[in-house]
C-alpha cells in the first residue's frame, strides 16, 4: 500500500508558499533516522556474516604468512595449500563427511516417516486414543529423565554405543515437530477430504499416502529441514556415544582437530611411520582447520534459501494453535 501525501506534521512545511521539493511517503522514517536504521541493522547483519567470511579468507591464507601475521582479513599471501592438502590426506575428512551425509539422509527420512504418521493419527478427531497418544508425545516436552539415565538406556539396554544408530535414533523424533505437523494436518487437511476418500473405498493408509501427503509437502519440508539441520550440526550424540574414529561425524571431527590436528592423519591411508611424521611436519595446521570449517558449512549456505523460507513458516505454523 502506498500512501503519498503532502501532509506533514511540521508546521513550517505546511506553508503553501514554501517550495515543495518532493512528496515524501509519510509511512517512512525521516532521512536521518532512515540512515541510522540502515547503518545499525546493516552493521549487525554484517557482523553475523563476517566471521564466516573471515574463516573463508583464513582457509585461503598461506600458512607461513598466517603464522607470521596472525589472522588477517586481507592476507599477505593467498594459498590453496590447505585444500589440496585435505584432498591429498583427508581420508578421515572424507569418512566423516560420509558419516554425516549418511546420518543426515537416513535420519531425516526416518524422522519424516515416524513424525508424519504419528502427527496425522493424533490430528484426526475420530481417532479414539488421540488424547492418550498426544499426552505421550507432549509430556516429553515438559519432563525427562535426564542425561545420565538416557545414556545408560542407549548404551546398556539398546547397546547402541559405537554404532551409526547412536547418531540417528536418539534425535529422530521430537515432540516439537509432531506439534508442528499435527497443527498443519489439522488446519490444512479437513476431515471432509478424508471422508470423501473413504467413501471412495480407500483405507486409512491409502488416504494418507495419496490424499494427505501430497497437500502436506510444505509441512513436511519444514520438519524435514529442521531434522536435516539437526543431524548435520550434531556433535553431542557423538560426544556421548562414539569412540570409534571411523564413525565420527563431521562436527565431531572438527572438535577433535581443535586441539589435535594430527588426528586428521591418524586414519589417512598414507605409507609408513616415516611418511607420516613427514606429513605432520609439513601439515598446514591452522589453515587446514579453517578449510574444514568452510567445508562443513558450505552445504548449509547452499541450502540456505530453503531454510529461510521454511523455518519462518515452521515458526508461524508452530505458533498457531487451534
Amino acid at each position, binding site marked *: 500500500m502506498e500512501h503519498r501525501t503532502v501532509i506533514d506534521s511540521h508546521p513550517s512545511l505546511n506553508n503553501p508558499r514554501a517550495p515543495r521539493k518532493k512528496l515524501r511517503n509519510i509511512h517512512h522514517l525521516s532521512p536521518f533516522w532512515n540512515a541510522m536504521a*540502515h547503518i545499525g541493522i546493516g552493521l549487525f547483519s554484517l557482523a553475523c556474516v563476517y566471521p564466516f567470511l573471515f574463516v573463508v579468507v583464513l582457509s585461503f591464507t598461506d600458512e607461513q604468512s598466517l603464522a607470521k601475521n596472525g589472522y588477517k582479513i586481507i592476507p599477505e599471501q593467498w594459498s590453496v595449500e590447505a585444500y589440496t592438502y585435505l584432498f591429498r590426506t583427508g581420508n578421515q575428512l572424507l569418512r566423516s563427511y560420509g558419516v554425516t551425509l549418511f546420518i543426515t539422509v537416513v535420519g531425516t527420512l526416518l524422522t519424516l516417516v515416524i*513424525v508424519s504418521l504419528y502427527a496425522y493419527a493424533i490430528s484426526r478427531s475420530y481417532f479414539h486414543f488421540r488424547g492418550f497418544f498426544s499426552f505421550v508425545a507432549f509430556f516429553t516436552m515438559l519432563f*525427562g529423565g535426564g542425561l545420565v539415565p538416557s545414556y545408560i538406556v542407549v548404551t546398556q*539396554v539398546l547397546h547402541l554405543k559405537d554404532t551409526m544408530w547412536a547418531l540417528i535414533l536418539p534425535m529422530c523424533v521430537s515432540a516439537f515437530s509432531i506439534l508442528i505437523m499435527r497443527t498443519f494436518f489439522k488446519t490444512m487437511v479437513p476431515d471432509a477430504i478424508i471422508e470423501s476418500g473413504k467413501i471412495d473405498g480407500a483405507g486409512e493408509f491409502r488416504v494418507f499416502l495419496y490424499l494427505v501427503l501430497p497437500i502436506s509437502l510444505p509441512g513436511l519440508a519444514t520438519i524435514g529441514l529442521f531434522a536435516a539441520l539437526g543431524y548435520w550440526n550434531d556433535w553431542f550424540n557423538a560426544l556421548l556415544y562414539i569412540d570409534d574414529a571411523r564413525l565420527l561425524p563431521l562436527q565431531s571431527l572438527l572438535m577433535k582437530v581443535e586441539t589435535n590436528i594430527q588426528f586428521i592423519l591418524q586414519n589417512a591411508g598414507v605409507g609408513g611411520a616415516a611418511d607420516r611424521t613427514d606429513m605432520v611436519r609439513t601439515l598446514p595446521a591452522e589453515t587446514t582447520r579453517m578449510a574444514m570449517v568452510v567445508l562443513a558449512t558450505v552445504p548449509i549456505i547452499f541450502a540456505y534459501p530453503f531454510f529461510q523460507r521454511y523455518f519462518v513458516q515452521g515458526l508461524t505454523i508452530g505458533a498457531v494453535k487451534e
Partner: protein
Amino acid sequence: MKGLLRWLKLVGRNKALLLMVLPGFVWFLLFCYLPMPGALIAFKDYQFSRDGFLASMIESKWVGFKNFEYLFKTEDAYLIVRNTLLYNAAFIILGTLFAVLVAIVISEIANKKLAKIYQTGMFLPHFLSWVIVSYFVFSFLSVDKGVLNQFLTWIGADPEFWYTETKFWPYILIIVNLWKGVGYGSVIYLAAIVGIDKSYFEAAMIDGASKWQQIRNITIPMITPIIVIMFILAVGGIFRADFGLFYQVPRDTGALYSVTNVIDTFVYRGLKVTGNIGMSTAAGLYQSVVGFILVLVTNFIVRKINKEQALF
C-alpha cells in the same frame, strides 16, 4: 470382561491409526519413558552390573538422598545453579530487548529488498553449530593470532589471555549468544508487527502523530502480548542451559569453569569425565524437577493472560 471386549473392539476399529502411531510410540517409550525410572539412580549407589541395566538397577544399594547431600555440599552446586540462572536471565532479558528492537527497526525500513537482505544475514548464525561458532570465536580471541589481541597490540595495549581470564567470559558468552539468536528471535516479533492493522497508523498520522509516537503508542502496545508470552515461556526454561554454548565456545577450558560451568555441563562431566554417576544423575533430576515445576507455573500464568497462547 465386558469392558475388555469393548476396548478390544475400539482397538479393532482404530487399528490403522494405531499402527500409524506405533513407531513413534515405541520411540517415546525407549528414549523418553524408559529413562524416567532410570532417574532413580539418583537415590542409589549405582554400580554397573554385567547382567545389564535392570540387574544394575536392582543390585545397586538404595542410599536415599545421599547423592543430593553430596551435591549440595560441593561448591559446584551453588556455582552451576548461579551460572545457569544468571546467564539465562541475561539471555532472556537482552535477547527479548534486542529481538524486539531489531524487529521494529526492520519493519520501519522502507526499502523492503534491503530489509530482506539484512534479515538473511542475521539468520545465518542460527543455522551454524556451536562447534563452528567456537572456531569463529577463536579467530577473534586466539592469544597469539587473534583479531582482538592484534588490535590491542596495535593501540599499544598488552595482549590478553582470553582463554584463561574468567572476568571476560560473562560478556563473551552473552555477546555470542545474542549474536547467534537475535536475528532468528526477531522473526516472531516482525510477524506480529506486520500483522498490525494499518488503519491504526493512518488514523495516528491524520492526527499528526510522529513516527516515534506511533512506535511508542501503537507498535509496542500491539506486540506487548506476544512479548509477554514469549518472555514467560522463556522463563519456564531458565533452568536449562544451552550445552553447546557453555561447552564449545570456551573450548572446555578448565580455568574458566567457575564462570562457564552450568548444570548441563556439570551433569555431562559427571557422567563422562569424573564418572560420578550418582551425583550427576541427582543434578540432572534436580534440573528436570525444577524445570518441570517452572514450566507448569509459567504456563499457568500464560493461561491466565491469554488462553490461546498457553502450551497446554
